[in-house]
């Protein structure tokens, strides 16, 4: 199991445990973390799984591919830690990862 901590828009902190291979979007949606929708089911086609990865975890991630980059380009309030949760597959090396979630998606 891999531990993931979500810090919500309003400061609420919640940690969940999910299986190896789960995406960050699935970890959020599956545990009813507010602010992450995942409308396209993880096809990298909607950007409703936009979240912010805490700086210390950023360079442990596989870099974003072109489609993720174009969608992030259009998302709201993008910052240095912005990623699409569905494109981040969790594995042992990401055990303990921390992500902030936005107020909502659109």
């Amino acid at each position, binding site marked *: 199991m891999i531990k993931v901590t979500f810090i919500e828009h309003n400061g609420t902190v919640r940690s969940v445990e999910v299986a190896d291979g789960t995406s960050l979007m699935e970890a959020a949606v599956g545990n009813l973390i507010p602010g992450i929708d995942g409308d396209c089911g993880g096809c990298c*086609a*909607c950007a409703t799984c936009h979240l912010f990865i805490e700086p210390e975890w950023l360079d442990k991630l596989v870099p974003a591919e072109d489609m993720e980059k*174009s969608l992030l380009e*259009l998302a*709201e309030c993008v910052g240095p830690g912005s990623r699409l949760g569905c494109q981040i597959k969790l594995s042992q090396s990401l055990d303990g990862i921390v992500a902030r979630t936005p*107020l909502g998606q*659109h």
Partner: protein
Amino acid sequence: MNAAYTAVPQEQKNPAYAIPLEDIDVSDPELYRSNTMWGYFERLRREDPVHYCAKSLFGPYWSVTKYKDIMQVETLPGIYSSDSRRGGVTILDSNTAVQLPMFIQMDPPQHDEHRKAVSPIVAPENLARMEGIIRRRTGEALDSLPVGREFNWVDKVSINLTTQMLATLFDFPWEDRSKLTYWSDATVALPGEGLVDSEEHRMQIMGECAAYMTRLWNERVNAEPRSDLISMMAHDARTRNMTPEEFLGNVLLLIVGGNDTTRSSMTGGVLALNENPEQYAKLCANPALVASMIPEIVRWQTPLSHMRRTATEDTVLGGKNIRKGDKVVMWYVSGNRDEEAIENPNNFIIDRARPRQHLSFGFGIHRCVGNRLAEMQIRILWEEVLKRWPKPGQIKVIGAPERVASPFIKGYESMQVRIDA
């Protein structure tokens, strides 16, 4: 021998299976007026998911009918272009009104610049700010309905509320609000079919719209920033310096985008619940299901039957060779009924596990920017309806609705209902 007992497979009774495959033309507007397109799409999904039609009202075109193939087209905007100069986003090649700069029919990088400027207007924070006033006005409209008497839901509720909501979004002078619907209808009307006589006539109407909106812009650019769309565009660094054409293009896109689509969802919801009384009962027993019912209504209705793209290079889709310049039509109305992507797709189920996994808003970089706004409007309508009329079947559809004859806008001309006291 009783005919009812001879097992004729469903597909052989359907006229969609009686013609040669290559003759199938799902763009025929009559199919949508009579609501008989379903069988043709079912057959295409099974036998020829990416289908070439050589002759139609709109010229030759490809039909993409499966969910996963539509997703592929949506996510390759470099190969499948939305650019108005190549033909735009509907099966009918673009008209003069829509030659205005609208980002729905632009490709990156231009598309991205325009979209980024408009998108914050419909961000969650702003929607929350608009919710109260939309709710109050929705309530007032419902309170004025003639309970106990037969009336047309399309006029009295769907058109009335979408017009009011557009006026609220633009903070548009209330007494003139029917102009918004008029401009929207004139933008998409086919010349000679009542509303506009010619492309010149259309441009004249657009001119009136531009003059009116420019006046509002000028008033607001010099006033304190407020949360309506025009004030936001007038004060945002990214939109402040738009050309007059860009301003008109964006305004019309927002009006048109949210008009017919939300309107037909507001009608479609009542129809779907009437056709599925057990779902109506489920909803009344647990009104919290409104949350998952709203996306299901949008899927079930599919307010835009398709979006179109034009191939920028030779490519392969679902095993078919698409040539540069070919017209490629993504039939959302078919993808939303694809049993390989959606469980029991032909059923209206208000408590689906993943209700937002549907194609009605498109996907990829052009995915509907107003999708959360649309959902909010329809959600408020149903929350307010259930407060007033909480019993299953209390809003009754009387007779069959009259449907729009169009392969693009999937909606209703009229639908008679009666609300029982």
